């Protein structure tokens, strides 16, 4: 438990995540980090766009991609974005149990998404022999989508760490910013996925 009483006030302020200087710093720091991540993913997208036709006589994007699985993955991730909004809604109402519940659902949806992605990669490798090393297109595809998957995985680890750590002590001004920064990060992962399903899969299917 925290010994600092200022972190456990009688009534929680309206925006507990931004009530302390540390909280404000975390909030801004994460947003700025996302600004940098935008360029990181843009570089990966640019590389992908440059190499998407370099199939080296391997399968092309039109032959590879199936829309059903991607649609399912998209729905999973979009929904997890909404559930994390719900979690923050309950954080602002100082309802810790419901927040944990919605965060838990967010995590499960994330795991399901990751499972689909692993299945998808496995499918490409074993059905089509389409690997990271088979062509420049392969390298670019797995790197871009894999970086996103890595971000999801990192987010899941982060989520479990803060959920387990704070399970018993409830919400206070020390951990509220942590939950909030996680939710921002999670939304950003969703933003990246919106571009991935549009630019990689849908545009890849159109040709």
């Amino acid at each position, binding site marked *: 438990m*925290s*010994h*600092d009483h200022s*972190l456990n006030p009688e009534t929680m302020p309206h925006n507990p995540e931004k009530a302390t*200087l540390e909280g*404000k*710093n975390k909030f*801004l*720091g994460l947003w*700025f*980090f996302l*600004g*940098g*991540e935008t*360029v*990181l993913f843009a*570089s*990966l997208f*640019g*590389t992908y766009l*440059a*190499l998407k*036709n*370099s*199939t*080296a006589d391997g399968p092309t994007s039109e032959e590879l991609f199936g829309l059903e699985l991607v649609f399912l993955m998209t729905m999973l991730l979009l929904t997890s974005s909404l559930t994390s909004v719900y979690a923050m809604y309950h954080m602002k109402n100082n309802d810790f149990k419901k927040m944990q519940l919605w965060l838990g659902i967010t995590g499960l949806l994330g795991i399901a998404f990751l499972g689909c992605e692993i299945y998808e990669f496995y499918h490409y490798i074993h059905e089509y022999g389409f690997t*990271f*090393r*088979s*062509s*420049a*297109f*392969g*390298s*670019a595809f797995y*790197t871009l989508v894999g970086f996103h998957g890595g971000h999801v995985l990192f987010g899941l680890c*982060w989520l479990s*760490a*803060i959920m387990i*750590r704070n399970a018993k002590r409830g919400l206070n001004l*020390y951990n509220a910013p942590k939950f909030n920064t996680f939710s921002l990060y999670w939304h950003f992962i969703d933003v990246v996925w919106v571009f991935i399903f549009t630019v990689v899969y849908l545009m890849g299917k159109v040709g």
Partner: protein
Amino acid sequence: MSTAIAQKRSFAAVLWDYLTTVDHKKIGKLYLYGGGFFFLLGGLEALFIRIQLIKPENDFISAGLYNEMITMHGTTMIFFAAMPLLLGLMNAIMPLQIGARDVAFPFVNALGFWLFLFGGIMLNVSWITGAPDAGWTAYTPLSTSSPGHGVDYYVLGLQISGAGTLMGGINFLVTIVNMRAPGMTYMRMPLFSWTTFVISVLILFAFPALTVGLFLLMFDRMFGSAFFDVALGGNSIIWQHLFWIFGHPEVYILILPAFGIFSEIFATFAKKRLFGYTAMVFATILIAFLGFMVWAHHMFTVGMGPVTNSIFAIATMAIAVPTGIKIFNWLLTLWGGNITINSAMLWSLAFIPSFTIGGMTGVMVATSVADYQYHDSYFVVAHFHYVIVGGVVFGILAALHYWWPIMFRRILNEKLGKLAFWTFFIGFHLTFFIQHFLGLMGMPRRYWVFLEHQGLDMGNFISTIGAFFMTFGVLVFLYNAIYSWLKEEPAPQDPWDGRTLEWAVAQPVPHYNFKQLPLVRGLDALWIEKMEGNGKMTPAEPVGDIHMPNGSILPFIMSLGFFIAGFGFIYQTDTDFAYILLFGGMAIALICMLIRSLKDDHGYHITKEELEKEAD
């Protein structure tokens, strides 16, 4: 009181203190020590290059070693000398200038430093097995086909230190946005803090491109991907774009803080408010903005076509406008001022003509048609050394003389300072001015030898003599640092009759910086109080408890983990044994992150009573 204790402390205690510190002033010093060490290393490499080129067909070092020298010289100087020295100055001074007790993320700040240091060590470990030899730009396919592990060390070293720099950038941004003292509005911030802010934005947007570029290179070299492998449809130009999308903002990341430094020094030693403060701020922002849109001028000869080349040529020339605004503002700050000339001022004054020459040759190489002649010749070498040495290195040395009393409680010896300045200044122009002409006469850069009777002998000889002058200047500066530490008296607070907040801080600087946060009433906050006869800042708050962060060894261990994992990545292509290093190192780093996440760190409070007692 505290110095007496400091002197009695054992070496181990001091070492532990620095390994675990999260204090921005100590981290600033660590950056200066680390950056200074790599600066000497990079200088030594430069000296080897110049000795090799002292006469035609010299065989002082072998061709392979020469390639390693030029690669390591460039990489070391940019990433591990200039960057950390500037980050060190920012760490040490910027929070004081804006009236903050600390930076926004002290832990991350420490992590940034250790990542930089381990990245630098990683790069230099490569000397044992063969250093990178593909040039500091590591163009593919030269870098993907370079044998041995040299380029692998380059990739991992830069990746690790680059992550640290990115963290440093975010940290500075949040500090400046959230932690300015009461009354310190954006348009009252000293120029050095402004440039820190702007270059942090550049770091934030430029470094991710390098991160991705390095990942692609790493995947190609170590995991068999095909980004740059033409046989499988890869494309080498991707690397050039990613490298320069990072690389060009990088040169502004280096030069803008120097601009900030000169603005402080000119105002202080001319005893005048900086001329055109607002214009200076907007010129800085404009340079940063334009600096993002000109990267392809490094690639004029790649064959992007006349339209692209023209666009980038014009955008590049446009940067001369805000830069010119700055030059004129400095001159007008000096005009009619009550000027004191000391070492700090000498470096600053020498900067103006030196940098202007570099700027003019910059416009020359920006002319895309003419650039086909200059490209990859010594003309370009001369150009970028004029801006980087004449701008950044002069700036760092000026800043060291100027802020030395705050950072190390000594005033550097003036006689030694002037000796160092004049030898370095003369040596610098001897070395590089002649290189313009060598380049125009057709001497290509990066060549191991040149032939005699081609008109290049005398020029190269003069250039090498200049390099020795510069070496002498650097050694005198080092001697000065040690000499003043041992022989000079502790410096008084505010020895230069300063204008900005950092001179209002007590000496030695307490670890909480300000007992009471100052109330800032305008630009040149301290000067305003001096003019109104107060002589010191008005506090903005009563004496109260101060919240401070706890020190931690985790940043050091976490960086060590990444360092170990780096070796794993490099050697997993040779032996499976390396996977132990890879996974072991990553595990160490991740466990440190987990501990950081799980273990509450509320910091501690310095109580009001302790503060009042310390004042006595």
